[in-house]
């Protein structure tokens, strides 16, 4: 690439602009962890404010918080538990989508695990609602499928 971002010095900060117009600063070393951002830096240079159309001011601070801890190597189980403790299901989803957009691998993995934890042992209806999925099986199709997968359904509680 023509321009190498100043990743050797960790004191350099990069400006990020969210889809709703707010500006946040992150360290260059944290920006490296978000591959989408790094690609934009490589293309546009590190002095320009990087626009992130799909990430908004509600979620970006949380993401920055996570990577701040990551570059100092302080991410522990306790930190991760605290991080998601007060987030409701929608907020986790938003963060997950943002992590996917930013190609932020570590956060993506962590949130995948968290979403999976939230869905563990939940009923089919619950999972449908969570993902916003519309059931387009006919009742016969569905009951046939459930029968085929009978072993999976043991132990799952169903909503009324």
């Amino acid at each position, binding site marked *: 690439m023509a321009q190498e971002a100043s990743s050797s010095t960790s004191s350099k900060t990069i400006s990020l602009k969210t*889809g709703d117009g707010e500006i946040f600063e992150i360290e260059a070393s944290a920006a490296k962890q978000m*591959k*989408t951002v790094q690609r934009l830096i490589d293309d546009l240079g590190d002095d320009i404010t990087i626009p992130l*159309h*799909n990430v908004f001011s509600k979620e970006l601070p949380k993401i920055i918080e996570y990577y701040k801890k990551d570059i100092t190597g302080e991410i522990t189980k306790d930190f991760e538990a605290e991080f998601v403790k007060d987030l409701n299901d*929608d907020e986790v*989803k*938003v963060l*997950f*989508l943002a*992590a*996917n*957009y*930013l*190609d*932020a*691998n570590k956060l*993506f*993995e962590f949130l*995948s*695990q968290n*979403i*999976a*934890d939230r*869905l*563990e*042992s939940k009923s*089919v209806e619950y*999972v*449908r609602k969570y*993902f*916003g*999925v*519309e*059931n*387009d*099986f006919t009742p016969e199709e*569905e009951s046939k*499928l*459930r029968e085929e*997968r*009978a*072993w*999976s*359904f*043991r*132990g*799952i509680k169903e909503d009324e």
Partner: protein
Amino acid sequence: MQSSSSSSGSCGGGNDQVASGSKSQDDMISNLPDFVIGHILSFLSTKEAVLTSVLSTRWKYMWTFLTKLDFRDYTNNNFNSFSNFVTRVLFHLNTATIQEFILEIPHYYDPYGYYTNQWISAVLSMRLKKIKVFFFLRGNEPKIPSCPQLVSKNNILSCPLFECHESLEELEFMISSLASCIIKLPSSSFVSFSSLTVLSLAGIITFTSSNEIFQELTLNFPLLREYKAVSCGFSGVKSITIEAPLLELVFILGMEFEQVITRFSASRITNFSYYCDTVSHTIFLDHQNIPSSKIFLVLFDSEDHSVEEISIFIRKLLRFFINAEYLELDLANCWPGFAWVANYLADIPVFRMLGYLKLKRVTSNTLLDFLLKTPCLKTLVLQMVDYDEESQNFAIVPDCFLSTLKVVKFDKYFGGEREFSFSKFVMENTKVLERISFSFHESCSEVEKAKEKLSLVKISFSTVIMEFST
């Protein structure tokens, strides 16, 4: 952990998204590429991931992009439905990479590993990173009919694990002791698993696949950090060298088979536990300057070797750990006749860094042998034996008494004469002692009397705290 190739479920990146803020959030997750959703599903147990096939037609085959397989059945149910489920899942899988294969089932589900072999073989070519197989026992299982032909044909768990020797990072096989299992290695005297970081085997016997008997087998694990072997052994070889430069933790409990020399070529071991019969096996560590920090040795002797042989074994083993900071040694059932042989451990090396020493079932003469070789000892925990021993020799006061020994704890104190005279020796001669505690053996009948006797001893410092507990 996550490779950047597209098939293993890394994030899709910004390009895949339609950048429209007005689209409802709920839909957005469903619209992520299949392999990304498959990746989320990989964090669920396979049983739950397959459930999502009922969500909607789009989701019917989403689970086939699973990258991790996790089959656990603790419900003690019908093996057939479990096995059908596993077979169906394996059949429908739509990925080129399976990163993990976890199987936890009661032993009686698959007593000879027949099905497990097939299942693992089905995924071996998919760049597995982690394999964990755990056969557990419950109290109430149906009896497994014995089938000597099957057992002797080495049919149990004999899948060719070596196929994933480049990608495998963690291997855990914990088979209950009802059946022995074999891991086949290629017929070569040098076997390497280049990515392995954790190796944990229980109830396994490792075997070379060909009928050749190798004199020496080298197992090369350049990234291995943990090595645990419970009731394992190597058959068909005379000596094994485990090359593991990054190895930190070694745990060996009970070894099977004939005399095998095991050599560890590892210079960074920080935690070494060895709970075995003494003389039947020889262990070597290649580096004498291992900065080992914690050593746990529980040794017993089941074949009545002579005192000579046992002492030589102990001295040889201890010689590898002269830099240990923490040593726990239990001469469990070693020939009680040790009590009559004074100073059989007089030739052990000096442990210059040892701060914590715990000795179980030792006589006071052995204790002194150790104390004379541990000049920096801070804490001493001991459990003395009841045997009559040769007369105690308290002529030399160990260095650690004078400058470093701060805490002494007697476990299972019986109040016997030899115990008492040793504790007296300690109390009268230590100069920096802060605390001495006595925890009484449950069958000690004269606790109060013993307490009184101890309290009367004149301790060299009055600020020492003396504690009693039962």
